[in-house]
């Protein structure tokens, strides 16, 4: 059924269709609307039986989810940014214990400076946590991916983060095709746990494992993620059969045939890129884009296959590996090992900075001329950083950098003028 609804609400409705049994909620922007809606469904009885637990922190949210999942219940939670970091210990624990929790990450920057806007720093900080990570391009895909996530998590007995751009998707009202309960029930079988806390068959879960077996445990976690690479295309195909549309999978290309320049990106940014590519293709540029849906496990073979014919690759990512450059770009480079392809890292849109078509047009044209730095910061205000660097060189007690920069810019971050400049 087509609906014009907020992305968060669409995800909440899709999650509800998956019949979760325990949901933990702790407020953090921009994921709040999702759990608010789920809380409403549980309270008004449309989602029942289901326990909706208002926990006292994200750490507790993931911990409650761990307990619930270990006791055999289909379990869901959502978080973002600082919340994800606050629960990080439990995030690793959930995957280490092999618990198929599904969690939405409404992607948001990590402070300091505190910043509520979108980028991918939060999810990517947990890239080695042992969770599967999938990134939604649109709200339609976000809700579809949640349905697939439960299926995949429970089959593999591994937790999954479904990542969707905070505000940009979570708060956007868009048209979505909401599946029916019957469709979801047909696609998603009842959860049969691989291990469960049960007095009828008591086991101890969470043993201390020493040097004699830890490597093997970790290897098995890796092997399972590798297995996901094989399973996912099948699940996506099955999804198409039941729901009648493409969603999920490992990667997607757009206008990649004969592309000399390939852009790589994740999440909602792909839409803007596609609009730019359409215009550039119309103007005769050989440019295409590779969208990465599955970030963990990283689909090395598919990425290599999609990019190997290009002359250059521009990885446009909403994250920064401080002291190195790109996170996604580093992964892409691994996929392109030994191929004679230039890979440019472009850090863009972090902390919610708008990525405009205008900037992209300029960027891609410069890239085509190989006229960009290996690590480029899109729309960086060089005046401001140069001024601050100079200040720090000259003054020992130069004060807090972020506040100094705001003073230099002369506006507050929320000011409309900045957004519409």
């Amino acid at each position: 059924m087509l609906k014009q609804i907020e992305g968060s609400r669409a995800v909440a409705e899709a999650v509800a269709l998956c019949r979760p049994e325990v949901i933990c909620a702790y407020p953090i922007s921009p994921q709040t609307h999702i759990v608010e809606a789920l809380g409403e469904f549980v309270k008004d009885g449309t989602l029942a039986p289901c326990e909706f637990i208002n926990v006292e922190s994200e750490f507790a949210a993931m911990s409650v989810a761990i307990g619930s999942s270990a006791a055999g219940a289909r379990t869901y939670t959502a978080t973002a940014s600082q919340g994800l970091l606050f629960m990080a210990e439990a995030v690793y624990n959930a995957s280490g214990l092999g618990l198929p929790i599904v969690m939405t990450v409404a992607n948001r920057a990590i402070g300091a400076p505190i910043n509520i806007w979108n980028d991918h720093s939060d999810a990517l900080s947990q890239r080695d946590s042992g969770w599967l990570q999938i990134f939604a391009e649109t709200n339609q895909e976000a809700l579809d991916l949640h349905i697939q996530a439960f299926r995949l998590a429970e089959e593999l007995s591994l937790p999954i983060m479904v990542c969707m751009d905070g505000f940009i998707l979570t708060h956007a009202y868009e048209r979505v095709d909401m599946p029916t309960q019957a469709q979801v029930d047909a696609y998603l079988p009842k959860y049969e746990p691989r291990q469960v806390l049960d007095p009828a068959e008591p086991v101890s879960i969470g043993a201390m494992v020493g040097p004699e077996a830890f490597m093997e445990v970790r290897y098995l976690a890796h092997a399972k993620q590798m297995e996901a690479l094989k399973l996912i295309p099948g699940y996506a195909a099955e999804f198409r059969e039941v729901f009648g549309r493409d969603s999920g999978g490992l990667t997607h290309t757009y206008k990649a045939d004969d592309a000399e320049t390939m852009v790589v990106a994740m999440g909602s940014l792909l839409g803007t890129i596609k609009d730019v590519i359409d215009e550039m293709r119309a103007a005769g540029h050989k440019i295409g884009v590779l969208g990465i849906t599955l970030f963990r496990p990283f689909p090395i073979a598919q990425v290599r296959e999609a990019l190997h014919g290009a002359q250059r690759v521009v990885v446009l990512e909403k994250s920064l590996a401080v002291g190195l450059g790109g996170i996604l770009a580093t992964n892409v480079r691994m996929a392109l090992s030994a191929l004679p392809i230039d890979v440019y890292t472009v850090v863009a849109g972090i902390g919610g900075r708008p990525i405009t078509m205008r900037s992209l047009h300029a960027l891609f044209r410069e890239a085509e001329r190989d006229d960009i730095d290996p690590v480029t910061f899109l729309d960086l205000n060089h005046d401001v950083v140069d001024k601050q660097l100079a200040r720090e060189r000259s003054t020992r007690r130069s004060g807090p950098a972020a506040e100094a920069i705001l003073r230099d810019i002369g506006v507050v971050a929320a000011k409309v003028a900045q957004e519409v400049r």
Partner: protein
Amino acid sequence: MDKPFAITLDPGSSLANKTGSWRTFRPVYVDRLPPCNAACPAGENIQGWLYHAESGDYEQAWRALTENNPLPAIMGRVCYHPCQGACNRQFVDSAVGINAVERFLGDEAIRHGWAFEKPGKSSGKRVLVVGAGPSGLSAAYHLARQGHAVEIHEAGPMAGGMMRFGIPKYRLPRDVIDAEVRRIVDLGVTLKLDTKVANIAEAMQAGRFDAAFLAVGAHIGKRAFIPAADATRIVDAVSVLRSMEGEEKPMLGRRVVVYGGGNTAIDVARTAKRLGAEEAIIVYRRTREKAPAHDSEIEEALQEGVMVKWLSTIKQAAEGEITIEKMALDDKGFPQPTGEFENLAADSVVLALGQDVDLGLLEGVPGLEVKDGVVQVGPNMMTGHAGIFAGGDMVPSERTVTVAVGHGKKAARHIDAWLAGASYAPPPKHEVATFDKLNPWYYSEAPLQVRPVLDIIRRQSTFEEVVQGLDENNALFEARRCLSCGNCFECDNCYGVCPDNAVIKLGPGKRFRFNYDYCKGCGICVTECPCGAIRMVPEEN
């Protein structure tokens, strides 16, 4: 379940880890000798019979008791219970009233008519027991149970010896004596009354006895020289008490002075009171603390109006009056005359200065050694003459019913062995379970149950029994005050407190076993054993 490798484990798998290898000391269960048992002259297994009484199985308790002592109703009245003096419970609150429970069991046995089990086999041996006092009765009982044919020759007209002729009725009702004697006779013991053995050798030969046990009581009152006018009535205590059993009650007058500080002196003074004496005054040369009489008896006597002149000796007696001299204790605690005198009105003076045994029957028996008026016996209670054993008042020992009963048992064991051409070796005694071996925390607060006492008016005028028995509730309560010193009473503490579940409970009556596969040797079970029945011993390398 196809469980995740290493992270998820199956139950019970830790049993593969034998933590017993950590141990440097191991706990072992032990049995220690309870102090009450150790202190009992009759050799009773007090803790053993209390154990049954605790669960309300009084017959079983009585049977356990009479394994060693056939006279519980008597002993429950007249024993001075050294067991209670040794009882570890006195360090918790007050000693267990063992004597009261014993009496309760004895009275229960009489009430229910419980009988001894007859011996299964006959040895074909004949044993003569001389004297039907506590020692003779005890020996006869044990010998009969061992299958020997026993004859008791009693010089007096009734059985009981000094129990009957030396202890007043108000302490020991005569029907109690009769009942317990009858039960021994019912076992098959032949009791010949008014049969004085004048010569033991002849008597043994005449009766074709293989062995003899001599248990003649000390019926002869000791005399002391007191300058006295002819008219002064001076009598001895034993005679007074014996005459209480006859038709003619002794005539002591309104004012009676008793000379001596033993239990007999007390008994006479209290008897005199009951016979109507206005004054009964005990004169004793030392202090109350030094008096051989039991304090409880002194206390009861005082309650009944008996007066005592401590630190006093009788210098002379005249008609209706005696003169006493005040004494003072010297540095060594001996009384010395002070030269200070006092006169007391006295219609009679009763001498209670101790008793002697008539050893006439021993004349001409070779090998016997008599010293200080008593027969010398070896550790096996045998006199210097083979086959003749002796006990009770006749041998060097404290003269109490309890000691006498113990002698009877001990002698019977040795006689039994001797008759079989063997010798009896008592089993080695366990270490005594002293209070420091216990963990008294686990014993709940439980005050001593006091036996009811006859009201004072009737005590002063009648010979009714002064101290009454416990009722069942109280007796049960009292039995349960036992700490079971040194012997496991299956409280489950060791089983419960082991952090390693290394104690195996074997079920009721079977106690416990350590599982040394897992016992780490922490020793908590030892510390928390209430009764000191576990000990740590070093592991051998």
